[in-house]
């Protein structure tokens, strides 16, 4: 610290004062002469400690030659806390008399008072500068982390039969990690994980550009290789030359578990299978380096009960206090040793913290995404706790008789949730009636129009949402059919559907918008 201060002084921030009359006018002030700390004069003055006549110094010193040339007669070293922080250089006395012993005493006393004061001023100025620098860095970090937080998904996708978890923890110097979920058509979703080489605001901006580019391209082509090819070409002019982006892009079919993927140099995903861990390996160059790169496209399949793990290199490149790297082998072993449930992320974090030491600052961003295909409807329903999670969905063409298919499909899932006996029968009747209404009234029996059925559940209840394409007209409140009037032929014998549904379930809700009717059936999971 002392050396730094000295250097500042030597850079001439402070001017050395000469006495009046030197060299030509009494008020003349000359430029400060920097004294390098390997100049012998530096050590000499520090050792001398008090005022000294220039003519008495006999040293091979560049600074001394300069000082001499300025006509300086007396050098008064300013020493604080054992460090030379400056000098007071005086020219000839106005009287042309040599400096007396009293003069030198006075100057030595003055130097003794001034030096600590200057030192304090230097320290204050230094601290102010450091505080300003810290503030600037903090501000930049805030901006970078704001960009990142804004662009990372706010919510995880809720997919029937899947449990998706994500973890992101930025390092102090916010890196360029990102992940994204891109909704696609036909029960498919785009999975993205990536990492920009660099940190701070520049990395965050490149991450933002990459994310937007991928989203844009993914909307136009299904082929992950083509997505990366096009993203690469559009990113090249956008990315500073020293930066690039590693990125994995996969398209997951949530019905079949099929994953079509391509990889632009990102860490390989792991899939925890019943027999061990497999790596999803596809070759490709990082984005933003060279134009017209081709990306290998491979297909994998995530089976029921299997978990896929996507990571950034903040995990494998973490260091222990001894300097060892966490490494892929350790991560792979961890994944293999875990049963693959939603707590895989916390298991990896525990091990990571143990490895790098709990009190040490995280070196790089750590990002993880787990994509688990649930093994059963029951597991789906319990995976969400109190929150309602999508556990299954079906789409059926509006053909007569398909209400039976809807009924059987829902019943199968409900049985998996523990529904049985009377309550299962009631649910079946309600679903059959609601699906029939959707087919016959909402969709007017047009086989081209679909009836969409979504099942959501939590630990307490099951919701069945049945949606048709016949919006516009509201669904009337169920009226209690008047059987006497029907038997007397005064009323149509029909009109039982909505009434029956309402009596079968714990709660029934209907809604309508410009395009759809939705009927929601709620059944408590207790009492089976």
């Amino acid at each position, binding site marked *: 610290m002392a050396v730094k201060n000295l250097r500042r002084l030597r850079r001439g921030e402070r001017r050395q004062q000469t006495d009046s009359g030197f060299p030509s006018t009494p008020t003349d002030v000359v430029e400060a002469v920097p004294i390098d700390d390997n100049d012998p004069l530096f050590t000499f003055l520090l050792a001398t400690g008090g005022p000294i006549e220039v003519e008495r110094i006999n040293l091979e010193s560049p600074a001394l030659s300069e000082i001499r040339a300025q006509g300086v007669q007396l050098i008064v070293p300013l020493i604080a806390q054992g460090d030379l922080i400056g000098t007071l250089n005086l020219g000839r006395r106005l009287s042309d008399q040599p400096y007396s012993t009293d003069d030198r005493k006075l100057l030595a006393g003055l130097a003794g008072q001034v030096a600590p004061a200057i030192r304090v001023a230097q320290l204050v100025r230094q601290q102010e500068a450091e505080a300003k620098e810290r503030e600037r860095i903090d501000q930049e970090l805030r901006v970078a982390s704001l960009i990142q937080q804004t662009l990372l998904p706010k919510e995880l996708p809720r997919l029937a039969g899947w449990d998706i978890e994500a973890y992101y923890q930025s390092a102090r110097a916010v890196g360029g990690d990102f992940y994204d979920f891109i909704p696609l058509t036909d029960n498919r979703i785009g999975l993205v994980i990536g990492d920009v080489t660099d940190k701070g605001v520049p990395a965050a901006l490149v991450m933002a550009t990459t994310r937007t580019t991928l989203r844009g391209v993914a909307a136009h082509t299904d082929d992950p290789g083509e997505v990366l090819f096009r993203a690469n070409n559009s990113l090249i002019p956008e990315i500073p030359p020293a930066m690039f982006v590693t990125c994995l892009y996969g398209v997951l079919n949530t019905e079949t578990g099929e994953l079509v993927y391509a990889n632009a140099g990102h860490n390989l995903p792991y899939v925890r299978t019943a027999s061990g861990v497999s790596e999803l390996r596809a070759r490709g160059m990082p984005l933003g380096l060279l134009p017209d790169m081709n990306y290998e496209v491979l297909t994998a399949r995530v089976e029921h009960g299997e978990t896929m793990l996507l990571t950034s290199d903040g995990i494998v490149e973490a260091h222990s206090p001894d300097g060892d790297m966490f490494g892929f082998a350790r991560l792979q072993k961890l994944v293999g040793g875990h049963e693959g449930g939603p707590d895989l992320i916390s298991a990896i974090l525990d091990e990571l913290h143990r490895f790098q030491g709990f009190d040490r600052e995280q070196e790089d961003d750590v990002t993880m995404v787990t994509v688990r295909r649930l093994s059963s409807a029951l597991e789906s329903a319990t995976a969400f706790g109190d929150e309602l999670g999508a556990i299954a969905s079906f789409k059926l063409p509006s053909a007569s*008789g398909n209400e*039976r*298919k809807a009924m059987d499909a829902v019943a199968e899932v409900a049985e998996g949730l523990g529904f049985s006996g009377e309550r299962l029968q009631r649910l079946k009747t309600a679903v*059959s009636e609601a699906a029939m209404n959707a087919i016959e009234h909402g969709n007017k029996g047009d086989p081209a129009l679909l009836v969409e059925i979504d099942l959501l559940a939590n630990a307490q209840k099951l919701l069945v949402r049945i949606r048709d394409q016949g919006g516009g007209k509201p669904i009337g409140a169920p009226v209690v059919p008047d*059987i006497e009037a029907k*038997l007397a*032929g005064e009323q149509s014998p029909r009109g039982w559907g909505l*009434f029956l549904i309402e009596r079968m379930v714990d709660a029934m809700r209907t809604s309508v918008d410009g395009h759809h009717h939705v009927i929601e059936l709620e059944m408590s999971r207790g009492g089976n």
Partner: protein
Amino acid sequence: MPGTPFSAAVRQEDGGSVIDLVGDIDRNAGDRLTAAYLEAVAGRDQGSPVVLSFRDVDYINSTGIAVIVTLLAKARAEGRSLRAWGLSPHYQEIFQITRLADFMTLYETEPQALAVT
């Protein structure tokens, strides 16, 4: 899973006529059920009841309820007693909810249904 096609067979018993219903009762069952009813009552006097056997019926939907309401209206217009047995607890509940059971007595067994005069 497609449903079981509907069929209805008539048996004449001492206490009345029995129609053995098999399969799904929905709107498609209407014509066949009416025909079976006509066959069942042919040659029987007005006081002879018609008993519907639901033992082999697994599925009745609201359009099937409408078919039964139509048949019940016809029987009541003729002053004939229409009875039922063999309904599963679930459909017994539905017959209660719809109040069909108020106009068509439900029995546990076929002999019970035929025993009442």
